[in-house]
């Protein structure tokens, strides 16, 4: 039993954190968000650090990293509210590798080929099997909704049904029509329309999709822990510094106890992120991962809401990072299934 990162994991997490501290503070992030919505140089730097191919095998320019290797990176991304669609890229990369189509991985570990993961559709909510996109004669027709990172992707991993069974395909983005937008937490996304789009099928089907969703869920848990850490840190600092009635508001017991409950929520969530990430590789432990997402969904809601409330009016403004953290946590609480969805799955397993 051991809850530490190994030396390599710690080094990677530290270097990512250092880089973000230096080049991705709240002001720099603002410029990225108000501009194109992502930064080429940041993306290139992530690739330089070896992040893009992290979960790929060494054959494909990667490091054969598992969820625990990615965990520290995701935590750091959560803390800095990174908007570059990293998770979409690595999940799609994992899909292509596991699906045996490694020829399509060229440039992926270098970050020069960008990937996105196009699965969700309007009305499917969190049911992986409910999609309506179909494959006919090797071509895909259907509509994917709010695909994170699609506007800047070169290739999309797309789910579609053949004879009622879910299969996975790779589609060149140029073959799809995109309607780009920003998500509620300021990430680049697009609705993706496919009409008879040429596609290459990869192996795996619904089982691989389930694996990818479980891995994504575990990594979202880690990202949320990073964001919650920031929300707690900034709230605690605010309680110590903000004065009313002549004293710091952190001297009021009503607020102290709420801060303590946020802190406890964070620690409970962190424990569950450790559990999820250590059970997400190979054959993922779906029950453990759902349990983690339930706890993290609840904690994200609790901590984000309390962090805004305890910051008072300032917490509502765009000017403070805590409101952007609120937006990210609200999105992460629902990504790959909200607490209700995972409660149903947890009980059924």
């Amino acid at each position, binding site marked *: 039993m051991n809850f530490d990162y190994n030396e390599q994991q710690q080094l990677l997490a530290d270097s990512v954190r250092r880089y973000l501290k230096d080049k991705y503070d709240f002001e720099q992030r603002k410029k990225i968000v108000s501009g194109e919505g992502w930064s080429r140089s940041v993306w290139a730097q992530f690739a330089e650090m070896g992040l893009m191919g992290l979960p790929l095998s060494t054959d494909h320019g990667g490091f054969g990293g598992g969820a625990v290797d990615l965990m520290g990176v995701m935590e750091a991304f959560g803390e800095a509210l990174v908007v570059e669609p990293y998770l979409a890229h690595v999940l799609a990369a994992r899909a292509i590798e596991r699906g045996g189509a490694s020829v399509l991985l060229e440039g992926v570990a270098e970050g020069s080929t960008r990937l996105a993961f196009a699965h969700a559709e309007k009305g499917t909510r969190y049911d992986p099997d409910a999609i309506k996109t179909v494959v006919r004669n090797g071509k895909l027709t259907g509509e994917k909704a709010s695909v994170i990172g699609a506007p800047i992707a070169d290739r999309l991993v797309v789910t579609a049904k053949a004879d009622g069974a879910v299969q996975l395909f790779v589609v060149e983005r140029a073959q799809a029509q995109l309607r780009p937008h920003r998500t509620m937490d300021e990430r680049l996304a697009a609705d993706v329309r496919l009409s008879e789009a040429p596609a290459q099928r990869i192996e795996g089907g619904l089982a691989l999709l389930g694996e990818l969703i479980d891995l994504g869920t575990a990594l979202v848990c880690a990202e949320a822990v990073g964001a919650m850490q920031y929300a707690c840190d900034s709230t605690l600092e605010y309680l110590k510094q903000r004065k009313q009635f002549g004293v710091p508001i952190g001297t009021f017991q009503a607020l102290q106890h709420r801060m303590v409950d946020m*802190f*406890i929520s964070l620690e409970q969530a962190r*424990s*569950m992120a450790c559990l999820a990430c250590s059970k997400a590789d190979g054959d993922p432990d779906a029950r453990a991962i759902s349990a983690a997402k339930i706890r993290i969904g609840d904690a994200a809601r609790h901590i984000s809401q309390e962090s805004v409330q305890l910051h008072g009016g300032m917490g509502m403004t765009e000017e403070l990072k805590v409101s952007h953290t609120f937006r990210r946590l609200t999105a992460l609480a629902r990504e790959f299934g909200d607490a209700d969805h995972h409660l149903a799955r947890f*009980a059924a397993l």
Partner: protein
Amino acid sequence: MDLNYSAEEQAFRDEVRGWLRANLPQDLREKAESYQHLSKDDLMRWHRILAKKGWIVPAWPKEWGGTGWNVVQRYIFDEELGLAGAPPIIPFGVTMCAAVLLRFGTEAQKKRFLPRIANGDDFWCQGYSEPGSGSDLASLKTKAVRQGDRYVVNGQKIWTTLAHYADWIFCLVRTDPTLEKRQEGISFLLMDMKTPGITVRPLYLMDGGHEVNEVFFDDVSVPAENLVHEEGKGWTVAKYLLGYERMNTGRIGESRRQLARLKEYAAPMMGDARWRDRLSRLEVELTALEITNLRFLDRMRRTGQPPGADVSMLKIKGTEIQQGLTELMMEATDPAASDELAQAIRKRYLSMRKTTIYAGSNEIQRNIIAKMTLGL
């Protein structure tokens, strides 16, 4: 990162589990299963079985009978006791009084009291709270006046758990009422419960059970040699004990057993999504607490440092979960049922409301985290 127990730890768990299966008396196991009251004889019988095996005081130094287990092994042991439904090891002697004597006691005090605690010869209780001093413990008023080689004690304690079983009581008493810094006027005193002037009066709680008492002291004469640490240093002793108390309040094993029992007992309810979701959330919370607890243990093992104030969260979460489980169990009883088990389950719900109040109320635990961990 590896959340699994090592092969050695797993083997240790198997050893404990196997021994419990063979040595926990069936009638005691059944009493726990059916939520029946445990008598003093039940508690002491189990105490002696563990003592005979050499497992009654794992945390003590080896020279006094400890097992030499590390913190993780001790946690596994406690968890297995809970999972097996073993009677509780009453902490006042083996955990609390012993911890104080080992840290602050004289050689003579250790020799006199420790072996008798381990053997189960003396049953101890804790005299801390008073009618006017609950969370604000340092305001206590029970007075001990030095007269030659004795103290004369007058006053009253309350919420004294199992005082009606006890041979001895360890007490916080006020030896100097004049000091401005009131903590410095407190001393730690051991008293034989048979001493003339000590009266125990039961307090029945809302489940009808007799667990706690009021203890009255009327000119009780106590030999000065029963003072632990120096006069006026009782608060130091009490604070030392606090950290000890909190590490073991998660009660993960016991809650795991209750959860399994609940799923079995409430099987007909599992089809109701509203009810099932509440159960699932509790299970998730318990899993999270278990891992949080292991993270604390891992930290203690690596750093060799005593637990920090943040372990107060184990008490908060552990008791909230215990209450959540007993509440769901109560709700699972058929509202029309009046059988013995249903009645026992309802009583248990009533009784478990105490857990968030005792051993430092959960509000006090939050104060501790706010001050010590968060710096508020």
